């Protein structure tokens, strides 16, 4: 039945499928392994199935087929109240008719703990999220960020094996979001269990998670660390989803040992490749805005000429739009130097963009 080996992952999705009565396939025979001590993110556009997957893990949805294992146990048929996981909902779902303390004590009372023990645990949980003085407040008297912390405390006080977070930062404003990002990372390290986060915001996923699964249309497109996904995306979808990328369409001219020569409408370029295309294949050259050098090149590098259009100023950096010879525009990242030298190209001026063969990425 449940054969537990030491190499078994902590959480395993085994060909999990979710079909809705109206025919939509939300999760398409997905398999995934997650370890017991990481910050994991499910990232993707809305409708990709990430939330459905999370809800199947929590027990609020039942898979149409497939099995789910947690810590060696097959929990697929378990009711949510029985599962050793807890979830922080997107709306936080803090019970409005109970005080903060009663909210946190809710799960403990169900477990049948004694009154003194419950009071003690509640106090510790509140201290962990820095809300000790709010124990007798009602939820409507708290701010959104405070309510979220109550939801966190309420879930963590039950010592779940995994904590699930549904779009945890979407409702917070920018300043609070940054604080919360760091706060959650710190909390996870303290508690030591796996956090699984669902988000559509790639910045969130990249800054917080140690591994990310990028999903689209019910399947995982690529799984890896933020670095892997950013530097070596396996598809245009992933490349465009994490950070921004400029894509130049071209045809494969020649395939060398480690690099590929690509013919495009604006020139011929050499680039490294992770996969081996055939000559004549259509590929995309992907160059991240920060990979371009402006008007400052090494003769070995790839070069493109273009006309500078608008530039947006962001304080520590600027983004320029450059029009290429074939009419396509690319985004160029320009760091604004400490010594204040303004490198932004003037509107309408000619610019020369260059990048090295190792900086771009070839995409099918």
């Amino acid at each position, binding site marked *: 039945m449940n054969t537990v080996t030491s190499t078994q992952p902590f959480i395993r999705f085994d060909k999990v499928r979710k*079909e*809705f*009565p109206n025919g939509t396939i939300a999760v398409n025979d997905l398999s995934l392994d997650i370890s017991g001590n990481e910050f994991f993110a499910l990232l993707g556009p809305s409708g990709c199935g990430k939330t459905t997957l999370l809800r199947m893990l929590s027990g*609020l*949805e*039942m*898979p*149409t087929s497939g099995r789910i294992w947690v810590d060696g146990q097959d929990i697929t048929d378990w009711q*949510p109240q029985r599962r050793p996981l807890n979830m922080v909902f997107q709306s936080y779902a803090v019970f409005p008719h109970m005080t903060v303390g009663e909210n946190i004590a809710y799960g403990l009372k169900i477990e049948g703990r004694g009154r003194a023990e419950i009071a003690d645990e509640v106090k510790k949980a509140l201290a962990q999220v820095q809300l000790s003085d709010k124990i007798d407040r009602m939820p409507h008297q708290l701010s959104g960020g405070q309510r979220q912390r109550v939801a966190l405390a309420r879930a963590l006080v039950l010592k779940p094996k995994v904590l699930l977070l549904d779009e945890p930062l979407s409702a917070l404003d920018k300043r609070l979001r940054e604080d919360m990002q760091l706060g959650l990372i710190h909390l996870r390290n303290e508690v030591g269990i796996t956090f699984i986060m669902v988000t559509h915001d790639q910045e969130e996923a990249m800054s917080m998670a140690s591994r990310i699964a990028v999903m689209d249309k019910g399947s995982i497109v690529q799984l890896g660390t933020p670095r892997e996904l950013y530097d070596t995306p396996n598809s245009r979808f992933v490349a465009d989803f994490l950070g921004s990328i400029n894509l130049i369409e071209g045809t494969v001219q020649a395939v060398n040992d480690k690099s590929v020569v690509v013919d495009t409408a604006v020139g011929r370029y050499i680039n490294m490749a992770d996969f081996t295309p055939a000559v004549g294949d259509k590929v995309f050259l992907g160059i991240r805005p920060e990979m371009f050098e402006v008007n400052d090149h090494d003769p070995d590098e790839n070069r493109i000429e273009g006309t500078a259009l608008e530039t947006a100023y962001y304080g520590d950096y600027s983004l320029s739009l450059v029009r290429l010879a074939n009419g396509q525009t690319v985004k160029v990242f320009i760091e604004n130097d400490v010594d204040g030298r303004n490198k932004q190209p003037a509107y309408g001026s000619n610019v020369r963009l260059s990048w090295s063969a190792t900086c771009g990425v070839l995409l099918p």
Partner: protein
Amino acid sequence: MKPKAPISPLEYTRRWWMRTLVAVVLVFLYMPIFAMMLFSFNDSKRTVVWEGFSLQPYRDLLQQQTLLDALGNSLVIAFVTTVLATTIGTMLAIALWRFSFRGKAVLEALNGLPIVIPEICMGVAIMIFFNAINWPKNLPWPFSLTSIIIAHTAFCFPFVTLVVRARLAGFDRSLEEAATDLGASTWQVYRDIILPYLKPGLIAGALLAMTLSLDDFVITFFTSSPETLTFPVKIYSQVRMSVKPYINAASTILILVTVAVTVAAAWYYQRAASRNGQK
């Protein structure tokens, strides 16, 4: 055949015990009515033993002049009451929605009283009132119905106010502001913007008033006289004496008419409401 998806925790309606319960309740609610309707086609002088299909009860019904007169009274009363109650109730609803004034809470509470107070109290009070002011008792028809109409209107229009106010709550004031900005006068705004929006609410309110008036027994019981019987009051006196099939027939007709009108109005309300962009 595709295997059925497993039931998720909150899908209560898919659980068998829930479905059984709802089925039992629906059977409980409809069985007596269906049985009674069925026996309106019974070929017998009594109503509880089935003796064959027949339309005789319906033919008998046409012979019952007093019953038909009572039905006529009910319809006239309902019609006039609907017109009055809808008008008064709608005007009040608009005033409550739009304006703030001293004593508003009192008026709202007062308007809610006819809805909450037991019908018998209202019936008794109105009867006492008409008696005390010596309301003329032998007016020619249809003026003899005025006391009933007045009483019906009094207890119907608060319901209309309720319904219309609910509809008004969803009104987008910016539509009105746009119209004023384009030069419309107050009267034009009401005629061209607010009233059309209100139409589904008016229909619902009018339907409610009509049904309440047609069905009313208690208040009518106290304000009617032997010359001004309404349909429910007449049935009441018949039912206490003996059980006759033509009563089933009359009831069946009334049920079918009420259902048809209700369903039509509900369908119309849905269509009109969604066409206006509100739901």
